[in-house]
């Protein structure tokens, strides 16, 4: 019998993938009949490393799990550790932690919107959305000192306080993003081309979402009202009564497709703005660390025998940590479940029956999580001096002129 199916590998390195992962598809003509997803290209054994280190080191190690939502894992980690240790963060720290987490949600959602625009070939939109994202990154840098990996949290509180100038900057950013989100709604949701490219693409039904254990915006877009901030509130979320953003509340119907995911994410930015506004206006006074002395904190961890699970609603969905303290100054068992761990489950069922061209689209619509490590490139001359903006620009112009002469 003649061979009727062919094997098409996508990844681990592929223009449509921002992170190394491999999708192996068996195709019959253009139709995908079998899919296998290979993960683990970025597996670094972080849980194993954490089980060898002390809890404070592990907290900052957990920040390196994800390069985009770099506060999600520390958040789940501190919640879990506090539950296991039986300590509570001071009210002010609880509010500060919520503010930082929500600022991060804004930047992560805008990043996703930009990536989606890029996947559609709409690069002008990518640059426009990411221009808007700069404001919140600058704000995070202003508050924490870093655009990513903020090192802001500590078991039993937060490490840096919010000053008057920070609060002014946050209020400024809130005003900016109310307007920016309105623009985004217009550009993304009212655009016929965007709608045509996303409606009925990567469609997940409620039933399938439950069975695949999907979390976060993907599950909410399928109509499931699940959100850790609502189901198991913690920190300032417990005062706010957060409600899951689902398409049926916004437009009255659920498709569970990429368009709905976009809608959920844009409306979640608005929800985040509301949460930050509330936290800033009601920020309690007081200290920010339950146990300010880290040596005392480690000693307490060493004395503690206990375990707990803790969750945080990251921009991409539920992050769950399990910790067990057993006489060491660090966790003896540490289990991390990130949202993509569950959400990648959807690729297989979504791709079967789809066409080859859908592979990168489905992959990107569900989970674009890339690590943004590099942020500043410093150019040095041969004798070690840094080149400033003006010189770099001058050199660029010289080069352009040179190329132009050569081409003549």
């Amino acid at each position, binding site marked *: 019998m003649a061979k009727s199916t062919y094997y098409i590998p996508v990844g681990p390195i592929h223009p449509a993938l921002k992170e190394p992962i491999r999708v192996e598809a068996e195709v019959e003509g253009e139709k995908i009949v079998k899919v*296998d997803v290979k*993960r*683990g290209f970025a*597996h670094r*054994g972080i*849980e*194993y*490393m954490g089980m*060898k*280190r002390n809890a404070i080191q592990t907290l900052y190690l957990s920040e390196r799990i994800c390069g985009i939502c770099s506060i999600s894992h520390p958040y789940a980690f501190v919640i879990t550790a506090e*539950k296991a240790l039986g300590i509570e963060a001071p*009210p002010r720290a*609880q*509010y500060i932690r919520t503010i930082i987490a929500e600022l991060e949600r804004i930047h992560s959602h805008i990043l996703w919107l930009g990536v989606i625009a890029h996947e559609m070939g709409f690069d002008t939109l990518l640059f426009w959305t990411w221009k808007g994202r700069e404001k919140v990154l600058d704000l995070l840098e202003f508050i924490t000192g870093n655009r990513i990996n903020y090192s802001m949290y500590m078991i039993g509180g937060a490490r840096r306080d919010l000053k008057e100038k920070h609060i002014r900057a946050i209020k400024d950013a809130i005003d900016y993003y109310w307007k920016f989100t309105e623009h985004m709604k217009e550009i993304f949701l009212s655009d016929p081309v965007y709608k045509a490219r996303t409606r009925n693409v990567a469609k997940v039904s409620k039933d399938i979402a*439950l*069975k*695949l*254990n*999907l*979390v976060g915006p993907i599950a909410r877009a399928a109509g*499931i*009202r*699940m959100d850790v901030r*609502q*189901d*198991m*509130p*913690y*920190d*300032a979320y*417990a*005062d706010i*009564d957060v*409600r*899951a953003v689902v398409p049926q509340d916004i437009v009255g119907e659920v498709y569970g497709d990429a368009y709905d995911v976009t809608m959920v994410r844009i409306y979640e930015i608005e929800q985040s703005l509301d949460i930050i506004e509330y936290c800033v206006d*009601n920020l*309690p006074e007081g200290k920010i660390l339950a146990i300010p002395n880290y040596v005392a904190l480690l000693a307490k961890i060493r004395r503690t025998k206990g375990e707990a*699970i803790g*969750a945080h609603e990251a921009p991409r969905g*539920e992050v*769950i940590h*399990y910790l*067990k303290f057993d006489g060491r100054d660090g966790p*003896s*068992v540490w*289990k991390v*479940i990130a949202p993509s*761990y*569950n959400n*990648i*489950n959807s690729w297989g*069922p979504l791709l079967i029956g789809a066409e080859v061209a859908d592979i990168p689209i489905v992959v990107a619509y569900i989970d674009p999580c890339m690590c943004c490590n590099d942020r500043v490139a410093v150019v040095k001359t041969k004798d070690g001096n840094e080149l400033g903006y003006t010189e770099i620009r001058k050199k660029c112009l010289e080069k352009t002129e040179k190329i132009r002469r050569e081409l003549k």
Partner: protein
Amino acid sequence: MSEVLNVEQVLEKLKNTLGDAMLSYEIREYTMGVKRQRKLYEIWAEIDKDAFRKAVETIFAIDYPHLHFITGEDTGGEVIKMIYSFGIFHTRPWGEISITLKFDLPKSNLILPTITDLMMGAETNEREIREMLGVEFDGLKNKRHLFLPDDWPEGKYPWRRDEYGVEDMIKHTHKSVKEIRKERGESG
């Protein structure tokens, strides 16, 4: 839609179906909130390993759960402590009850029934536990490695703390220079 039960009723249902197989249990309360304090509940139960499948089926009968995680702990002894955590009623504000089941699995017989027939998505978790701890899942269809490379040596499991562990495969990334010198017998 399934009937919403409170934490005591959920525990009661588990106790009724499991009977003596429920070795110990507790309800943990956590108070959350600064201005308006309310409570969250978790059920932690230690069960007999033979009753595991029954316990999971009971949870699925109460409400279609969300699987938080599956993990296991090897302390170097004769058993691996398996931990399964589920969340039920997770679409209700302040309503999610998480149920954590723990049981000892003897290393001489590391076999568990799969739960992928009840929840497709659990395949990822089971495949991870299979490669990290060496627990076999009866009925798991896809047994390929999840995170570890395809050419990973047979009989090596990263989370094990016995002779099947990976201590000999890794570098001393977590040890201080002082510790390494001490092990080698060099003076500080």
